[in-house]
């Protein structure tokens, strides 16, 4: 049975009672704002337009599926609603994907990237690749632009799991801005193996510094059973960052672990520097 909340039903939105219809529209508007705020740079990035022309169809489909799942996770901890007045986060994940499609399509059209004579399939792939980023922006809108969030702290019962989830979500969000670009590859061409090793150590150090040393917030490691030291947390977080970097390099066609190790490993380490920092921010926020 389909249930519909009356438009005039009063809902708590922040500190005031508002009509449910108005809150709904406001939530969706927040989603659009978050989508653009986080992902407009990627809509203006030529490498993303190029990736749309080269990414294999099945990779794009898989990554859209991964994005949908990540969006659901982001909605668990941030979201576009100030108050969690609707239960289904999976439906909200569908909505942020829709917001992502519309935001991407409108921006690509007004910037002339999608022109009237463009091949339909190419246009679809352009929208698809950009939707990954714009939908992600919509799913963290409140966290990026507002105060409070519709997260439910009870969902992550394990303190150890929070380390993994924070590293995963924060790292993915941050690295997505860099992963499509040529710069990690260019950086690797400028490096030798000593600099690559130094990058790896720097990534660990930055992750440790940001979370443990800088002490942005009080941390209680006694609740953890496995990841119960700062250095071990930095190591685990780096491994998550490395995995995310490898996945992003594969999606954007730069390298896979099936390539020679001299090709993919330095690129993964270079990008993991970015991902590790994003993961550190994710762990601070969670």
């Amino acid at each position, binding site marked *: 049975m389909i249930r519909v909340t009356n*438009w005039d039903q009063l809902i708590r939105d922040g500190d005031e009672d508002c009509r449910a219809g108005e809150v709904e529209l406001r939530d969706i508007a927040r989603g659009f704002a978050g989508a653009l705020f986080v992902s407009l740079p990627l809509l203006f990035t030529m490498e993303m337009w190029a990736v749309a022309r*080269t990414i294999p169809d099945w990779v794009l489909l898989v990554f859209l599926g991964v994005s949908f799942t990540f969006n659901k996770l982001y909605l668990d901890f941030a979201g576009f609603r100030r108050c969690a007045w609707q239960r289904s986060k999976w439906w909200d994940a569908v909505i942020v994907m829709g917001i992502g499609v519309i935001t991407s399509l409108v921006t690509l059209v007004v910037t002339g990237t999608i022109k009237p004579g463009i*091949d339909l399939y190419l246009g679809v792939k352009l929208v698809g690749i950009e939707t990954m980023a714009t939908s992600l922006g919509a799913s963290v809108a409140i966290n990026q632009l507002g105060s409070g969030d519709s997260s439910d702290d009870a969902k992550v019962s394990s303190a150890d799991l929070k380390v993994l989830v924070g590293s995963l979500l924060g790292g993915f969000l941050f690295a997505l801005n860099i992963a499509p670009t040529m710069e990690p590859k260019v950086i690797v061409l400028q490096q030798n193996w000593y600099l690559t090793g130094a990058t790896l150590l720097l990534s660990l150090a930055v992750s440790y510094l940001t979370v443990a040393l800088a002490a942005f917030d009080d941390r209680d490691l006694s609740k953890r059973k496995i990841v119960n030291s700062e250095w071990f947390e930095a190591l685990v977080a780096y491994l998550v960052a490395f995995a995310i970097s490898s996945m992003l390099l594969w999606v954007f066609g730069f390298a896979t672990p099936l390539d020679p190790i001299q090709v993919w490993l330095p690129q993964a380490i270079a990008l993991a520097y970015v991902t590790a920092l994003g993961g550190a921010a994710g762990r601070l926020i969670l």
Partner: protein
Amino acid sequence: MNEMSEIRSDDHEAACTAETEQTYSPTIAGWAARLVSLGLMVTLISAIAYQAVQPDTPVRFSSRIQQEDIRPNGSEYLVPVEMVNEGSQTALNVKAEVVVAGRMTEIEIPMIGQQEAVTYVVTAPQAPKSVTHRIVSYEAP
């Protein structure tokens, strides 16, 4: 009345706390957002999946002159030549030679996707009726 307001206020506060079980269904706008978003995603994924199961065709170029846009430039003519990639794969760093009214011009196309058209303007001694091209090289996808 005041008690009712308090009860209502409590209900609304309850809707915003993590511990409450009381949540609301979407409004009409919310349902519209759900259905439109679902429709867009199904369309997007179906279009990509449909293309994914089509057989691959190799990179193949066609060229034509945009007759309506030819314009004189001093004693010569500026001739727009449209190159189309009729294959299903993207070609990178394409080098081609186009011959217009007997004059050969080299062109380079950094990237051209499936069914994508790129227009180059070349000079010709007279207004041509046709164009031929020769692909010198391109980077395979």
